[in-house]
């Protein structure tokens, strides 16, 4: 199937920083494409170049096999990372105002229903919660009934409940056949929502594939997590990859039994130990050598 969006060798430099350094990827229609990376990896710069806010130094962007034309703004829905809403307007007035700016229009009832806004329609924008605000910003991104929706870290700063609510909404939008580009640094979010993922760091794409294939490729073995007051003892006991993630030691090993025996011989306190199969966070650690939220 022909890609809905194709990014070819995109480069963007800010004074002293190569923000995007030869990024290329393509997105098939109807999927949720995740752009993963820590803060400063170049995700937002890449997204803003696609949105037309920033001009690239070089590279090409093809939308439906053509350069983005005047109709691109009509066909794309965008939710920024940090945006305030117009003051003194209600949720309904805000939706209506943004909808009027487009020739293409989604049905208001559908937007309100999909984004669960019915109960707050008459509320002033200044009086809605963080989760409600993100849902409204997502609803604004849907007002033009877009083919392609770009969501830049839509759940950052939300509590777990609000985050899960937004995931349900994004899943619902995905079911309607629209293409979604999602940037995030939450691995769980990417695993749940994304069909394909590109992992970015220092302005480059390190690898890209489906979460399943990435895990198969890089996620052999197991991850042991230990909270310990004597991390040196643990680090010296094992010969495999060891990372500090916040206050927890994470050991990636292909020989689980041998690793645990070594830890026990070294006298490490294993009472707080957990063992799990690798996830995308582990894949990222393996690929970049540092954590996503570093």
């Amino acid at each position, binding site marked *: 199937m022909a890609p809905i969006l194709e990014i070819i060798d995109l480069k963007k430099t*800010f004074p002293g920083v190569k923000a995007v350094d030869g990024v290329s990827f393509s997105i098939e229609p109807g999927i949720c494409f995740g752009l993963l990376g820590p803060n400063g990896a170049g995700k937002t710069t890449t997204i803003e170049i696609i*949105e*037309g*806010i*920033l001009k690239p130094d070089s590279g090409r962007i093809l939308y439906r096999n053509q350069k983005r034309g005047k109709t691109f*703004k*009509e066909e*794309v829905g*965008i939710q*920024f990372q*940090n*945006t*305030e*809403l*117009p*003051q*003194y*307007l209600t949720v309904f*007035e805000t939706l*209506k*105002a*943004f909808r*009027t*700016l*487009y*020739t293409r229009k989604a049905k208001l009832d559908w937007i309100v229903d999909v984004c669960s806004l019915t109960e707050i329609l008459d509320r002033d924008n200044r009086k809605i919660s963080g989760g409600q605000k993100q849902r409204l910003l997502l609803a*604004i991104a849907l007002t*033009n009934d877009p083919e392609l929706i770009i969501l830049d870290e839509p759940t950052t700063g939300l509590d777990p409940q609000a985050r899960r609510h937004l995931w349900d909404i994004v899943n619902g939008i995905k079911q309607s056949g629209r293409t979604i580009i999602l940037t995030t640094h939450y691995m769980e979010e990417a695993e749940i929502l994304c069909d394909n993922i590109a992992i970015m760091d220092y302005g480059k794409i390190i690898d890209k594939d489906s979460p399943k294939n990435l895990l198969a490729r890089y996620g052999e073995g197991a991850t042991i997590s230990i909270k310990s007051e004597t991390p040196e003892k643990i680090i010296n006991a094992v010969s495999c990859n060891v990372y500090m993630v916040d206050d927890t030691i994470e050991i990636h090993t292909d020989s689980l039994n041998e690793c645990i025996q070594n830890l026990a011989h070294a006298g490490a306190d294993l009472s707080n130990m957990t063992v799990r199969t690798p996830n995308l966070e582990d894949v990222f650690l393996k690929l970049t050598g540092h954590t996503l939220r570093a």
Partner: protein
Amino acid sequence: MLKRIWIIFLSRNREFYRDRSGFGWNIIFPFFIIIGFSLIFNQNERSEYKIGVVGGENNIKKEISLQYNNFRKSKFIEFLHIESIESGKEKLGHHRIDMLIDPEHGVYWKSESSPKSYHAEKILQAGYYQPGKESFIAGTVEGREIPYIEWLFPGVLGMNMMFSALFGVGYAVVRDRKNGVLKRLSVTPLVPFEFLTAHIMSRMFVLFITTSVVYAGCFLIYGFENRGSYFSLILIFSLGGFSMISLALIIAARSSSEEFAGGALNLLSWPMMLLSEVWFSLEGARPWVKNVAQLFPLTHLTDGVRKIMNDGASLYDIRYHIIVLTAMSVLFLAAGSILFRWRKAD
């Protein structure tokens, strides 16, 4: 395109009237100024007077020379040379001077409605008086004199328009750029021309409503009259408002710092307020000050409105102000549009 302009226009208006404090301030502030100043002048608080002196001071009438010299030594009084009695009376009638005096013939003229003129007369009389001795005699000003409040009113209205236009547009656009609202709008089909047009229309609408309310309120309180046509008045107010909104758009074209915008707007508004003859006449001021004042749209708005309201001037009579305000509007709007950016600089 019209739908997009209309919806931004509506949104801006809603923001304005739902911001109760801002809305109330726009309506109430000019009332406070007018009422406050009328009270201040009734309580004889002012201490600075401008006296127009007609003719030379070489041939002062002998009988009143001591009185005149004492008057000239008084503090807080500025003496200005006036070419002729007729121009002096005209300036007196329009409160550009507080008293006209002709020392050669021992005559003075005062304004009947001006508290400052009353005080100046008292100071002159106190300078020297002996029963039976000759002193200055009071002349009469022929024709209609403009009540002081009617001279003050156009300036206060103009000043209120200036603050509303500069801060209402300049500050709002900068705030929306800072918090990302403009960035969000930039990825919609809305183009800068539509956005700026909607902002100008919305603020013109606000200015029209608030100015009408204040005009009607002051008309009811003070009962003054407009001696010119209302069409002329609306036209000059519209041009003045438009030019000052356009000026605000230059300030708001790129900045995302409310502090910078606030400083820049104050830098514009304060000199305009002081030099555009809102509160006091620039009669006797140095030529360069008068020339600088000509660069301000508020000067032309205030002067034009005064000529219409106070003198019944026609559009032809105030063509200079109309041409200047139109030219300023076009210049400022073009500059503001060219400089405009949706988002803050990287």
